[in-house]
């Protein structure tokens, strides 16, 4: 890596033992990903907010039957899965940047990032399993909670 003399960057890289200030192409990939995923997420999340909070009955109309009705359509499952993955990677990468900027000690940075990665993996795996294994008509559900297309018990 070449360094530019006195680059007048908004934030000078902090020198210090064990503090790497550049990670080569991975940081470039992360920078590109934030922009590309961001544009896609604007569409996915605005669509999600419009359908769930604006069209129809809004937040008060959201219940199990509402979710089951949406996920009966494969397109909404794909939409939500893509939204889950992109939003989680985008958000986790954003939090990683914030940790790198404000956690001064190497050990603190490491532990915060371990915690961040663990939470992110847990949430992505859980959310993915839920979308793939969702059952709109579970056996033994309380009366009146299922969508109208479920067979009568």
């Amino acid at each position: 890596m070449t360094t530019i003399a006195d680059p007048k960057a908004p934030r000078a890289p902090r020198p210090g033992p064990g503090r790497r200030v550049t990670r080569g192409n991975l940081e470039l990939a992360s920078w590109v990903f934030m922009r590309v995923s961001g544009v896609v997420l604007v569409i996915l999340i605005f669509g999600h907010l419009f359908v769930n909070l604006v069209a129809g009955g809004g937040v008060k109309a959201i219940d199990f039957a509402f979710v089951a009705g949406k996920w009966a359509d494969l397109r909404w499952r794909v939409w939500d899965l893509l939204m889950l993955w992109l939003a989680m990677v985008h958000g986790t990468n954003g939090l990683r940047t914030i940790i790198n900027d404000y956690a001064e000690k190497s050990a603190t940075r490491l532990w915060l990032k371990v915690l961040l990665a663990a939470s992110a993996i847990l949430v992505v795996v859980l959310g993915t399993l839920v979308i793939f294994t969702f059952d709109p008509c579970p056996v033994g559900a309380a009366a009146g909670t299922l969508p109208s297309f479920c067979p009568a018990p």
Partner: protein
Amino acid sequence: MWSWVAHRITGFAIFFFLLVHVLDTSLVRVAPETYNAVIGTYKNPIMGIGEAGLVAAIVFHAFNGLRIVLIDFWAKGVKYQKRMFWIVLALFVVTMAGFLPRHLMHVFGGN
């Protein structure tokens, strides 16, 4: 500078909501009544105001994020960055003006 600060704060807040939101949605896999009980807490007036704040954070982060993309990839982006910031604020106001009455009507309305 302030757009950068606001982008960080809104991004940080949205991320933590996202973690909670995936966990609460995952309850659809436990039982319909469990999910309904938890999602029911999203319908009280205090949470309704919280949702308005969340949507405001998302709308700002979205429009300002598009502004960042234009600054980085559009040849005239840097030149117009300040003007684009005012456009972001205008679009924010317009979007929230469309969303808030509808949402508050859902939250505080009779049904």
